[in-house]
């Protein structure tokens, strides 16, 4: 049911039955290292190319989720997934092997929440009883896709972010499954916001206004206050973007500074060399939600969270042609039932 301007209330509150995550070496050694399910110390993951490795990260995360629940891939109705590569090849090649009906998504770094939103809407409407949502990214393949190949040894400015290597996956099931797990209550798909930022090394600044717009709209639509949530979690705004988001909200007389958290800031040690402004990429919020935040929800340390993933929807071609960076943010409210 649509409420307010752009929020949907999910009457049947689908459950997030299980999650799984797989990450690369840098993430494994980061502050959230202990929470990830699969940790691979090799960026190639035993494959010949970074693109194949990225596919394998997603495949491992999905296989691990199925293993946790003792399920086989035939039991899954649909999968919504995407990544950062041209034509979403990481997901495409991964799901080729799984033989699950596939909806390919591109929302840049917002892909994971877009997938979560759509799969929970699918389950809510009864179109499926086991629907997967997944996203992946890989530092090395993203560098080739958006900037320059690693071989070039490119330098980065301090506002740049470091793409997370890995993948996260969540399984959505109908509410009548007997298990105490977090449920999805509201989703707020975002509009495209473009404030004219052209600097591809400062995507946090480009995406912060989109996050601001979606968060404010969500709070208005649901008539909730920021304090209603134990955490409002953004995907990958990084240091720069977070400061801008808090500032924008403050100017609007909404204070989210006490509840706001950013996966990009938490996944890496920000003082480490070449991390710069923090983590980014589809896998940032996907892996951090699927491991750390899902566990926090299950263990009731957090009970109500608003997951907001932001995506910068530019391409190297549009940047080369001098276009600014259009950004989108999608929000999903995930809560424990009392």
């Amino acid at each position: 049911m649509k409420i307010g301007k752009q929020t949907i209330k999910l009457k049947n509150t689908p459950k997030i039955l299980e999650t799984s995550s797989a990450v690369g070496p840098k993430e494994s050694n980061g502050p959230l290292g202990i929470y990830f399910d699969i940790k691979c110390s090799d960026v190639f993951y035993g494959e010949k190319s970074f693109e194949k490795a990225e596919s394998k990260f997603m495949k491992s995360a999905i296989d691990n989720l199925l293993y946790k629940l003792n399920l086989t891939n035939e039991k899954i109705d649909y999968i919504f997934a995407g990544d950062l590569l041209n034509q979403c090849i990481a997901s495409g090649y991964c799901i080729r092997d799984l033989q699950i009906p596939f909806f390919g998504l591109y929302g840049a770094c917002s892909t994971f929440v877009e997938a979560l939103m759509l799969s929970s809407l699918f389950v809510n409407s009864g179109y499926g009883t086991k629907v997967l949502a997944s996203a992946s990214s890989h530092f090395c393949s993203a560098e080739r896709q958006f900037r320059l190949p690693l071989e070039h040894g490119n330098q980065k400015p301090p506002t740049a972010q470091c793409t997370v290597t890995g993948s996260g996956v969540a399984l959505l099931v109908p509410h009548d499954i007997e298990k105490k797990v977090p449920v999805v209550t509201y989703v707020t798909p975002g509009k495209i916001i473009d404030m004219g930022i052209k600097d591809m090394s400062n995507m946090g600044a480009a995406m912060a206004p989109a996050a601001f717009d979606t968060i404010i709209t969500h709070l208005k639509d649901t008539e909730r206050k920021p304090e209603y949530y134990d955490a409002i979690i953004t995907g990958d705004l990084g240091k720069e973007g977070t400061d801008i988001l808090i500032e924008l909200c403050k100017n609007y007389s909404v204070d989210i500074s006490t509840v706001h958290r950013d996966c990009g800031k938490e996944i890496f040690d920000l003082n480490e060399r070449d991390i710069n402004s923090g983590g980014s990429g589809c896998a940032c919020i996907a892996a951090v939600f699927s491991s750390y935040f899902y566990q926090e929800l299950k263990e009731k340390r957090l009970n109500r969270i608003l997951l907001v993933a932001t995506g910068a929807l530019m391409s190297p071609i549009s940047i080369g042609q001098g276009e600014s960076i259009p950004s989108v943010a999608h929000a999903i409210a995930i809560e424990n039932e009392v």
Partner: protein
Amino acid sequence: MFSEYLYVFITGGVICSIGQVLIDKTKLTPARILVIFVVLGVIFTATGIYKPIVDFGKAGATVPISGFGYSLANGVIEGVKEKGFMGIFTGGVTATSAGITAAIVFGYIGALVSKPKLK
């Protein structure tokens, strides 16, 4: 002998730190900074500013990418002396051909024997 190394180190260091400041403090992309350095190398050579820097800093001034501009400009000047008008077109690449070919050959060998790694 030691002071010579010191001058080379200082000259190269100053040129590279200008690049670092440009990356950190401006919105210029690395590719643009690269091109600016080459073009400035050409202009400074043509106007006679780069020659004294090379005399002082030697490899410290010729190895950074601005040194490529220095070689290009000097090559064109040589080319014009030898071949006249055609030298404008042939001089630059002739003078820098060793560098260009070395970059391609060593780049190719490097790609054959090594794999890229996470920084």
